[in-house]
């Protein structure tokens, strides 16, 4: 395997990343020398027991946390030693999908998606609104444009969240257990939708999941334990779909 930081086209290149929480006697190392590369358009699933540092890795790649030691490059930009403003700027090209849907309660589905589209520059209000409607149609919610999150089911809310993340035209999508709050069928549907749309956009995906039923959507499966990573084989598709493998 080539060292990820050596690949200049990689969406994400993590090299020898270490991270600690707490200070003094309570200082605890959660990441112990992580190496990870994600190519453009690649779908990478990250699994592992809870508390092993998956979410920490996700927040570091997502430019939500300051890098302490090692190197994280996203779209070729080094995050170690980055300023708050640089990280905020970079986050505009990273889509995020959360375990809870984290939609704005006071906005309708359409307005929530438009909050994502509003991050695009140089578009008129109408263009951004049309974009939001298009994305909601793409996730199959054209009949629910004016509904508040309160009136949507769990699966519908997560689809709105996907539409919102994609509306900002991200080049990297980070998802933290997007199926955790969903039942089996809905979870499967949401993840397949996510994979299809991301692939259409040529957007890389890094998804943390505990859910063994969805591992087959991955191009590559990575396992984490005690702050270290290794590659794992992608299980065969249960549904009989042909999946593109990265190897």
């Amino acid at each position, binding site marked *: 395997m080539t060292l990820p930081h050596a690949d200049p086209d990689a969406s994400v290149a993590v090299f020898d990343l270490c991270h600690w929480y707490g200070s003094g006697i309570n200082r605890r190392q959660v990441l112990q020398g992580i190496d990870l590369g994600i190519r453009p358009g690649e779908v990478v699933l990250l699994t592992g027991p809870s508390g092993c540092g998956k979410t920490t890795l996700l927040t570091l790649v997502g430019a939500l946390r300051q890098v302490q030691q090692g190197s994280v490059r996203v779209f070729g930009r080094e995050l170690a030693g980055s300023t708050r403003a640089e990280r*905020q700027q970079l*986050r505009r090209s*990273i889509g995020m999908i959360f375990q809870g849907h*984290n939609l*704005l309660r*006071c906005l309708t589905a359409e*307005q929530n998606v438009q909050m994502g589209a509003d991050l695009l520059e140089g578009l*008129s*209000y109408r263009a951004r609104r049309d974009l939001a409607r298009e994305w909601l149609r793409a996730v199959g919610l054209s009949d629910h444009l004016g509904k508040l999150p309160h009136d949507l089911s769990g699966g519908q809310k997560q689809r709105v969240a996907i539409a919102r993340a994609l509306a900002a035209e991200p080049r990297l999508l980070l998802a933290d257990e997007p199926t955790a709050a969903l039942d089996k069928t809905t979870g499967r549907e949401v993840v397949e939708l996510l994979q299809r749309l991301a692939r259409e956009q040529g957007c890389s995906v890094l998804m943390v999941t505990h859910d063994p039923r969805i591992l087959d959507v991955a191009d590559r499966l990575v396992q984490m334990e005690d702050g270290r990573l290794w590659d794992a084989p992608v299980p065969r598709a249960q549904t009989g779909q042909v999946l593109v493998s990265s190897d």
Partner: protein
Amino acid sequence: MLSFWQSRRIPLSWLLLTRQPARLAVALAGIAFAGILMFMQLGFRDGLFDASVTIHKLFDADLVLMSPRTMSSIGMAGFPRRRLIQAMADPQVEGTTPVHWNLLLWRNPQTRSTRSILALGFEPGDPLFIDPGLAAKAQVLNQRGRVLFDELSRPEFGPIAEWFRQGKVVETEVAGKRVRVAGLVALGPSFGADGNIITSRETFLRLMPNTPPGSIELGLIRLTTGSDPAAVAARLKRQLPDDVSIYTKKGFEEFEKNYWRSSTAIGFIFTLGAAMGFVVGCVIVYQILYSDVSDHLPEYATLMAMGYRLLTLLGVVAREGFILAVLGYVPAWLAGQGLYALVRSGTRLPVSMDGQRSLLVFAMIFAMCMGSAFMAMRKLADADPAEIF
């Protein structure tokens, strides 16, 4: 135009506020209440000061002579009438009116109790008030012992206007001497006087026989059109001896207001009341905005994770404050308008919604809302996008 459409965003502040109508209603009620409190307190304060110059405003004068010993309208000292004649020598002085001014005891003809009333004495042929209606009525004062009664005087002086209109002969005592009401005028009570009567110089001197000869309390000076009152005042001040003080009409009103402002606690009390309203409003708005930010903290953190700048989010809170200020001010202004009408009819105080006070209260509500918004913004610093995963 194009840039407007490009910069137009979802009105997040408006939606945050309006999608919780109950909370918004509480917030607006609180702000409106604070605004009404400020309107009432400031209105009373200004109204009381204005009321102290109800009569002063009516005089037809550009400059006014008073004794330097005079401190206010309730203690007018005399000065030589000759000063007014000396002032006539100035080419820009068109005319003068000597006026006698004193508080006398009026006997209520119905209850026989006495009460202080402001009596003005002048030559019935001279111009006294700006309102030309008085000149015709003043003719009846040429008869001795006749007075014009101010029908806006407080009711404690007796049902004079009512009786007079019924055609009765209304006679009573002023300073122990018999007078007859020969007509009605509408002047209005002021701070120092609950009622007013106007009489001729001759009658006045009969009521006040101890007035030194040639002494008056007030001298009105009218200037030719186009002359500068301040310049003439300065010139007269140089020419006249220092047993008179000279004021412009505005200065004459200010002198009186200033007496009540500095020698009574009215200004302090009502300003304090308005300040209380301000503080109460601040607490309410801060509570509302703070809990709003706290409730939506995960949502703000999500927006930050999406790449929105902290400044944009601070702008959302600031706009919420602005919307609250505007929406809260409107009912406060309307209620203030209604309450002022109520006060006017109840107390005859000249309280009205003037532009300056409207602006002042808006500025205070605005400061209250924006200040609270800035306080609530500190809570936004707690929104850590790394915590929402």
